């Protein structure tokens, strides 16, 4: 037995587990009851368990991914041949705007946050995510925002000014109706949801790690999600501000973007891209964490250069905020400023390069096993490095002035987003599917899935580099036959067919494996991080005993009888709060029970957001219901076990 002291001075007892089995069984039953997930119809709306919310988030994000994919298919059909009449310009404009909007706001960021919601509490060794009711609220706000914009699409009112909605085109004069208002309000929905999850991630990672998981022992995936969460917190406000200005211009008659009255059309671009560039790193950095997790497990070696990897993640997060003007090189800004942003856009390749080199070094000294997740990582390397290099060329102002707003840029960002984020994501889903569902995905189908996606992706997007060189601009609903762009466009459409097949194959594999896959067991891959220490799927309470971490690789550095934390109550939802640097225990904290109020609050919030598009009365009318739901949400629960003056939050006590 060892004991240590928390900051409060109270002793923490770290005992070897496996006391008598009867006590274990009793503990298990009690934890199951305390942490139970509410059942029944109403219970579904009240769940605050991070695994359930994480699963819902992932599933919902994938539905939006499929919708975005269908929209892309429509675009490719229209562009397959010159002068096509499959989609007219109005419909095409809505389709390509929705494709970008759905993919960026409703799929890419939420799915990465969803993986964090599911995995981070497990990886840091705690029972639930911080602020669980906020988590529930965030999911429903996201869901309602997505539903709003899909319904708008179905009634021919989808936004049609591009996912970036430049003014004055998206302003009151040039986009009549409510289309751009739906777009701007979708931003508000998804920003609120994303900020909520970001705050939870920061709090969980900083304050709820298992004892012994000091900063230099945090898994690389958790580091990547921490960096991402900070990027979200700093980037999202810019676009919230910009979209609010747009809404005010459109609905109330302000002049933020009206040059004739002192506004500026470029203000929009600065506000949007100050968010927009970190946004792509918000999507990309979690994938870097996933790649690290997969490479470590499938080479059975720690990732080479842990400190360099962490610093690269942090550096990417910082430098990512200094690049945004490279989206505006054609607007005639002063030369000195442009040169600065060229330099910054080049420099950000260095941390990414460090990561690639460290992974290659890890592969070099490890014993690679080419299971499906590892295949996707290899595909990521092949595709992302190409995308990163085309990005380096785009950093050059003269070159950018030729290829900006052409299909070269479309090729570039699909290489870095699909290759750099979606391939690791699919690999990560193959990797963590056993943990989430308890069953393995089919390896044979997985290999086929990989090759379909890999070949389909390259056939679709590589020709677009050449189309860009040949002068084909973006966002065009058709092109003349005499430009000679027809053949390559047809090739790209053919590749898209393969991509769709790959997507369908993934869904098929997932569904079939969910129903009838091989039972996985706790740790089918001999993983490195803590989530593999508990059952698959994890019980509602995550871990029977909160573990004490003995090294950087929680599973590989574990002793034969690893120490655990005792003293946490199992009759209420208590978690251990530890300190930021060394994860020394500080105190125990009771998380709130599941509740229907976050869902009700999200209903009122969504009604307010949607209503304010149509009438300014939405604000005063919503204030009262909002207050009521917030009161219900935060109503303090009388502690059932309070004995006299005992405070709710108390230091962990040693048990006899």
């Amino acid at each position, binding site marked *: 037995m060892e004991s240590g002291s928390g900051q409060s001075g109270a002793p923490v007892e770290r005992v070897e587990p496996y006391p008598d089995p009867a006590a274990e069984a009793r503990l298990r039953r009690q934890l199951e009851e305390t942490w139970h997930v509410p059942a029944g119809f109403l219970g579904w709306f009240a769940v605050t368990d991070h695994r359930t919310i994480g699963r819902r988030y992932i599933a919902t994000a994938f539905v939006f991914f499929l919708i975005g994919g269908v929209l892309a298919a429509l675009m490719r059909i229209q562009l397959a041949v010159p002068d096509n009449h499959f989609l*007219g*310009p*109005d419909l095409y404009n809505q389709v390509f705007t929705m494709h970008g909007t759905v993919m960026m706001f409703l799929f890419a960021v939420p799915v990465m946050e969803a993986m964090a919601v599911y995995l981070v509490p497990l990886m840091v060794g705690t029972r639930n995510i911080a602020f669980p009711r906020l988590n529930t609220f965030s999911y429903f706000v996201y869901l309602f925002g997505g539903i709003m914009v899909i319904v708008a699409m179905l009634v021919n009112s989808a936004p049609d000014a591009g996912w970036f909605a*430049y003014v*004055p*085109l998206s302003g009151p004069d*040039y986009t009549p109706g409510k289309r751009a208002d739906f777009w701007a309000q979708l931003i508000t929905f998804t920003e609120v949801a994303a900020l909520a999850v970001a705050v939870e991630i920061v709090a969980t990672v900083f304050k709820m790690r298992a004892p012994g998981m000091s900063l230099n022992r945090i898994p690389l995936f958790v580091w990547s999600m921490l960096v991402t969460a900070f990027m979200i917190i700093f980037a999202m406000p810019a676009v919230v501000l910009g979209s609010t200005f747009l809404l005010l211009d459109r609905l109330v008659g302000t002049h933020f973007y009206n*040059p*004739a009255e002192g506004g500026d*059309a*470029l203000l929009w671009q600065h506000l949007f891209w100050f968010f927009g560039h970190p946004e792509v790193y918000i999507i990309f950095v979690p994938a870097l964490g996933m790649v690290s997790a997969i490479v470590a497990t499938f080479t059975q*070696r720690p990732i*080479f250069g842990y400190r*360099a990897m962490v610093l690269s993640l942090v550096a990417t997060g910082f430098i990512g905020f200094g690049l945004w003007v490279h989206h505006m090189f*054609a*607007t*005639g800004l002063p*030369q000195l400023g442009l*040169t600065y942003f*060229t330099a910054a856009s*080049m420099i950000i390749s*260095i941390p990414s*390069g460090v990561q690639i*080199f*460290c992974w*290659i*070094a890890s592969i*070099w*000294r490890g*014993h690679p096993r*080419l299971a499906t997740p590892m295949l996707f990582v*290899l*595909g990521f*390397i092949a595709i992302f490095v*190409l995308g990163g*290099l*085309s990005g*380096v*060329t785009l*950093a*050059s*102002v*003269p*070159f950018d*002035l*030729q290829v*900006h707003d052409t299909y070269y840029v479309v090729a570039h960002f699909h290489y870095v987003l699909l290759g750099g984020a979606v391939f690791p994501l699919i690999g990560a889903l193959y990797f963590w599917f056993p943990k989430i569902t308890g069953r393995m995905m089919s390896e044979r189908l997985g290999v086929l899935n990989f090759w379909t996606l890999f*070949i389909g992706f*390259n056939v679709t997007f*590589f020709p677009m580099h*050449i189309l860009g*060189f*040949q*002068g084909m*601009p*973006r966002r*065009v*609903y*058709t092109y003349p036959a005499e*430009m000679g762009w027809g053949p390559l466009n047809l090739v790209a459409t053919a590749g898209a067919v393969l991509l769709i097949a790959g997507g369908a194959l993934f869904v098929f594999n997932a569904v079939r494996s969910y129903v009838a896959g091989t039972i996985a067991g706790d740790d089918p891959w001999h993983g490195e991080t803590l989530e593999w220490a508990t059952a698959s799927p994890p019980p509602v309470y995550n871990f029977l005993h909160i573990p004490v971490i003995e090294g950087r690789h929680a599973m590989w550095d574990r002793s034969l009888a690893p120490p655990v934390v005792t003293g946490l109550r199992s009759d209420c939802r208590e978690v251990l709060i530890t300190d930021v640097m060394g994860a020394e225990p500080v105190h125990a904290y009771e998380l709130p029970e599941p509740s229907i109020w976050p869902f009700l609050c999200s209903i009122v919030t969504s009604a307010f957001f949607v209503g304010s598009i149509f009438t300014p009365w939405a604000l005063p009318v919503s204030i009262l219901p909002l207050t009521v739901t917030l009161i219900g949400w935060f109503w303090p629960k009388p502690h059932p076990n309070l004995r006299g003056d005992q405070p709710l939050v108390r230091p962990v006590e040693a048990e006899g």
Partner: protein
Amino acid sequence: MRGRSTRPHAACVWLSQFLMVLTVGCAGNQSMFNPQGPAARRIADLGLLMIAICLVVYLVVIAVAAWSLLRQRQASDDSAQTTARLGAIVAGAVAVTAAILVTLTAVSAAAGRGLTSPTSQDTVTVDVIGHQWWWAFQYRSDKPQDFVTTPNELHVPVGVPVILRAQSRDVIHSFWVPNLQGKRDLIPGQITTTWIQADRAGVYRGQCAEFCGHQHAKMAFVVVAEPMDAFQQWLQRQRQPAAEPTGDQERHGRDVFLQSTCVACHTIRGTDAGARVGPELTHVGSRQTIAAGTLPNSVEHLRMWVANPPSIKPGTRMPPHGLSPEDFEAVVSYLRSLE
């Protein structure tokens, strides 16, 4: 079992990617790799250099990654010495990366500096005014009555830098003729400047490169480069008012034009038609294209366009005519006569 059966998989992954990279196409009108002027040539050279460097880097990275995957493992791989050596190699790779990036930044900045100002002081200045979904090119002069506005067709003298002062009447557009220069946005409320120069006589196509609404896809223009004296002659001809119609049908066409919806939007200098909603038609017969580069300028295409513009450019503000067939033919022949 350890990966032996799946090594060919890995090799295929790398190989296919590598072959993909080798195919780069060029040539053609509106291709940036078919430069016809000094600015575009500088950019094309820079582009080729960067692509070559990136290709080499890519191949090296993929090759090293493939080798790392396929190599024979040794017991010494886990030793501290190997780890230290790996560290040194990674650090070296990062240093090489940084050096390449610094070089690319410097090369790009150098190319950029040569692109900001025109090659000489003898320049011609043209105003570019973007509308939804057509271009107006205005040649100023000392005498205001000598101003020339040509829609959708920009004539430039060969070998002379032409400064373009770009502005927009509505939303953001972008002026881009890849054979000659990088693009420049047209932003309402500001005037942005760029310059182009054609070193060879010819016709170069350009297109709007910033999404501007329904017909962004069909907002093209042509740049006609001709020797200086031909250019001056053209300019002089453009300054003339519209040609007097010679035949009866053309005369009738002019009357119909002036009495129907056409006159509400179009200017024909020398007649009473002075509206500035749509492009100026004073010399429409001599243009290479109509409808903002969408159609070649022939009788058939002119008929198609005037008969039903929304069928060719859905969303356009130009309505279908409401004329009888004879009046319609008369108007078409009148427009054809406006050389």
